[in-house]
């Protein structure tokens, strides 16, 4: 019950924000019948109506994972955000070893397997995509 109410609340806020953002769209020089903000307003209305429905008639709650599992997902999310940031700095191979090893470890493998999978994946994908197919993956200080 609660989850859907929260979703509905967030949805209503989003709809309000979206409608406001549609009102600040600059006025174009030449416009058509409904202009650049007409259709977004309809979308905001649909968003608001469906969100209102969640608040009034919520579904039963889903089974949320325990707190440690949520933290697990949160950390994985942070690691992936981090990967996007360090990729241009460390280069593809090193960043990929780190993140693959981390994910493998957190998905339940031992430390050695994780490291091997990290190195294997990074080198394997590098060989396939950069050396064979010629894509340009992120280059680090050593050129890979």
């Amino acid at each position, binding site marked *: 019950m609660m989850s859907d109410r929260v979703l509905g609340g967030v949805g209503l806020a989003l709809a309000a924000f*979206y409608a406001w953002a549609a009102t600040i769209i600059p*006025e*174009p020089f030449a416009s058509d019948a409904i202009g650049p903000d007409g259709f*977004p307003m309809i979308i905001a209305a649909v968003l608001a109506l469906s969100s209102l*429905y969640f608040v009034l008639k919520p579904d039963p709650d889903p089974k949320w994972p325990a707190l440690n*599992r949520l933290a697990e997902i949160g950390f994985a999310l942070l690691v992936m955000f981090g990967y996007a*940031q360090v990729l241009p700095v460390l280069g593809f191979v090193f960043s990929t070893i780190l993140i*693959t090893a981390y*994910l493998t470890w957190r*998905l339940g493998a031992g430390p050695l397997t994780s490291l091997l999978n990290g190195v294997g994946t990074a080198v394997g994908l590098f060989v396939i995509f950069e050396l064979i197919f010629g894509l340009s993956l992120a280059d680090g200080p050593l050129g890979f």
Partner: protein
Amino acid sequence: MDILASLGDGFSVALSWQNLALALLGCFLGTMMGALPGLGPANGVAILIPLAFTLGLDAVAALILLTSVYYGAMYGGRISSILLNIPGDEPAMMTCLDGYPMAQAGRAGEALALSGVASFVGAFFATWGLVFLAPALVNIALLFGPAEYFVLFTLAFATLGGIAATNQAKSAFAAALGIGIAMIGVDTQTGVQRFTFGEVHLYDGIDFLIAIVGLFALSEVFVFLEHRGQGESGGAAGKMKIGRLTPSWGMLRYCTPTMIRSTVLGFLAGVLPGAGASLGSFLAYSVEKQVVDPRSKTFGKGDPRGVAAPEAGNNAASGGALVPMLALGVPGSGTTAVLLAVLLTLNIQPGPLLFQNNPDVVWGLIAALFIANFMLLALNIPMVGIFTRVLLVPSHILMPIVAMIAFIGIYSITGSTFELTMMVGFGALGWLLRKLEVPLVPVILGILLGNEMEVNLRRALTISNGEWSTLFDSWLALALWTIAIVGFVLPIFLGKRVKKKMEDAAEEGPLGD
């Protein structure tokens, strides 16, 4: 026969060494992805689009590769259903019911071979259906003006949840979310910025590939993290005795009527808006059960017909689902939505004009489907053993690789940290929405079609000088509105019942097809 001549031209396009090799690669990768629990056809195609694009393949070649993956995944889903009782993808859910009992009785090989043949029959005849039905539908679609197109898009969103949708508000919410995201960037009609808040990266809008790969592929990684350690699948497949790999002629003849009925049903389910392969296999199985075994004496206990029916049904449906996607440009299921993304990436606008402007693409694609079918039959009967090995690779090795391929794909088309960060954000959003049972397919479709929908609405209103009644002005528009409303309202009354039936029959599936 114009159609057959065009098809002949299509074969001359598809039958080059490069294209044959790509089809084979696609079939192989697709079967593998279909076989692995958690990686369905939509995921499989999604992570390969950016790669096909950056590898510099031309339109026909890229399409051949990716549709082979699509057909392959539909074939592959059955492997883990039969061996592990875990559907490799949602449409393969029904195959567990009789496939797994057959495997337990030591007839795994027979079940695999029979389902391979059934998949072939379903897909092969559905592709013929596509050949004849799509051009016919094109003739109707040529009557569409902007108003009708707008209503057609509305129809697609209204019916996308399908008959088994339990909460239409969530489908509407998802669609609005997707369309809302599509609005970000420069307004193509007037050139003003919308919803960009001065962020340069957003001026061109959000690339739908980033959203698709994030929502589908990355969210899967989070799901695996959430359920780590519960129901590990590896290992069991190796111990299962496969047995003989060729179905006897007697068994094939015994199942022929089943395959014919299921193919027809599956194809129809695929063509109809908002149905897709899952419903195709469900319908095929339930109807077949009603016809040959109304008192459930053998169905559910390892009846070969219970294996043939859902496989013929789901593969026929996946062929049928291509009809509205190619002829109207409006996909009816998640995977065809992803295939639409392929076309848009290649700058090909699907719809009636596709058949006139790019006949080589359409007919080359259809010819490739025929070729892929024969390749899949060859891959799936004698070589099914290879794919059963794939099931032995544990998910902690596989999922990180999938995530990395997703990262490489998006990095190779954008080359920017900003887009990678956004993809991770979409991954988290996808996980959250899946938890809350908000369907992801309307979000994707909204991002893909949102702009096209708005353009048609604005064109229609410009033609009518701002009269909204233009949306209800022709019999065609009225007919489309009627279908849209019925399609949206019907599940409110029937959805819970149909869903319950499907769930009673099989366990929950991971993701829409």
